[in-house]
């Protein structure tokens, strides 16, 4: 079943700028997808169409085969939860567990079910010990993880993470990768936007590259970061991950991750 679909999706802002220009894509249940592109390529605009924050000016968006037209954002939030780049634009509760409770509470979850969800979400992001603390006692990295927890607790079939790696340190990025892995293992569909090529190569099974509102490339990392695709990436000022460049230089074939590069070298020797 195709969980998300965009059909000739177009979006023009009121001031006339075209942000999306005929985007066609389908995401199946349980996929992990990375969306990359420069600022202004349409990444942020695209994901906002999936939960109804923005409405298509041409084409359509389908969730589980149903058109999103006419469906409120609050209703679509049952299927698609999105967490945005800046946690400080959403954190408002006095206690961490209350912040995590907000999402599921809006969806009508109560009582022991709610408590269980909060506990599970805090566990997943490593904040179980701080449940009663004030969110602003946490540093920026952990506030980002808190924002992530609040969305995990909604237990939606689809989770979209907008720039979860920006402003994160190495440990934080590792934690995000684990979380995404956990969500996918649990059968959820995950979309993530990021500027970190290495993170994307190591985390998702499919990469979509956007440029000026259109899909430029769409495939697994070993295709999108392979040498034949480099000119297209360069056309939008993107570099393939370092491991891919080294692998190509050494004639190892497509090695988008360090792991695959080492494996290729081991295979050769």
């Amino acid at each position: 079943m195709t969980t998300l679909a965009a059909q000739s999706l177009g979006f023009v802002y009121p001031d006339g700028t075209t942000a999306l220009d005929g985007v066609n894509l389908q995401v199946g249940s349980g996929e992990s997808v990375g969306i990359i592109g420069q600022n202004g390529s349409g990444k942020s605009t695209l994901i906002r169409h999936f939960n109804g924050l923005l409405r298509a000016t041409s084409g359509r968006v389908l969730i589980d085969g149903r058109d999103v037209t006419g469906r409120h954002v609050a209703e679509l939030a049952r299927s698609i939860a999105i967490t945005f780049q800046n946690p400080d634009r959403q954190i408002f509760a006095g206690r961490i567990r209350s912040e995590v409770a907000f999402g599921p509470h809006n969806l009508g979850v109560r009582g022991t079910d709610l408590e269980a969800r909060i506990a599970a979400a805090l566990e997943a992001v490593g904040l179980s010990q701080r449940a009663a603390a004030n969110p602003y006692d946490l540093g920026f990295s952990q506030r980002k993880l808190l924002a992530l927890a609040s969305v995990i607790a909604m237990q939606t079939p689809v989770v979209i993470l907008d720039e979860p790696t920006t402003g994160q340190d190495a440990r934080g990025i590792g934690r995000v990768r684990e979380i995404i892995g956990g969500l996918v293992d649990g059968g959820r569909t995950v979309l993530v936007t990021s500027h970190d090529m290495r993170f994307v190569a190591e985390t998702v099974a499919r990469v979509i590259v956007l440029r000026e509102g259109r899909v430029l490339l769409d495939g697994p990392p070993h295709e999108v970061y392979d040498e034949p695709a480099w000119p297209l990436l360069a056309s939008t000022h993107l570099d393939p991950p370092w491991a891919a460049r080294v692998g190509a230089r050494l004639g190892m074939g497509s090695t988008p991750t360090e792991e695959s590069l080492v494996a290729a070298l081991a295979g050769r020797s």
Partner: protein
Amino acid sequence: MSLTLRSVAYRYAGSKRAVLEAVDLTVERGSVLGIVGANEAGKSTLCLVAAGLAPATIGGRLDGEVLIDGATSAAARPYELAQRCGILFQNPTTQLSGTTATVWEEVAFGPRNLGLLLEEIVERVGWALSLLDIAALAGRDPARLSGGQAQLVALASVLAMRPSYLVLDEPTSQLDPHGTQLAGEALARLAASSEVGILLVEHKTDLLESLAERVAVLSAGRVVAIGGASEVLHDERLDGWGVDPPSRVRLERAAQRAGVVLPAAVR
């Protein structure tokens, strides 16, 4: 001639916890010192202390000494400090004044505040814009620039104060890859062609390796390693300190673990 922190300890106002402790660092004129560390290790605080904003503008308690070219920062006023050491933050938009219609006026904002004559202002703006190769942006509205461009404008505005030292707190973290590239090139140009001493905090150790001669590692408010860039960035303890080593170093370690020998071309 250097920016020196000697036995520096710092507490934020109203807090008992020392965010920085026993910090000893030196940034020479014309060189770049890189700073790495996990988030909340105290890197941003270090930047504020080095530039003098802490405690002069935000309060808090500073123990130890911050010396810029031999002069202590302790008694100096914020506007005097601004001319000795400039600072650039992560967020490109919030550090712009928000009151100017063009990039030219934005870069002129600092020199104007100092009460300089118009000729001097004109000269400094021209110098800063051309040093960073953004003269073409002079007529643009600062509010309508891309993140990378806005960051360069903010950098030009700080340089127009003609500081001897510059502190950069993760200048590329909020930028897209193209913006990071622009900023990286501008910093390289700056390091090569001016005598400004630079303290650069960055997570992107690949970028740092190409720009910094020396690197210091901050962990829980203390300097736990300091030395030549290659040496420090090869340190085995980086992972434990929450720092991602440069790509080449990571690859070497991964190859070692897999028992694979890396071809000379990569090493």
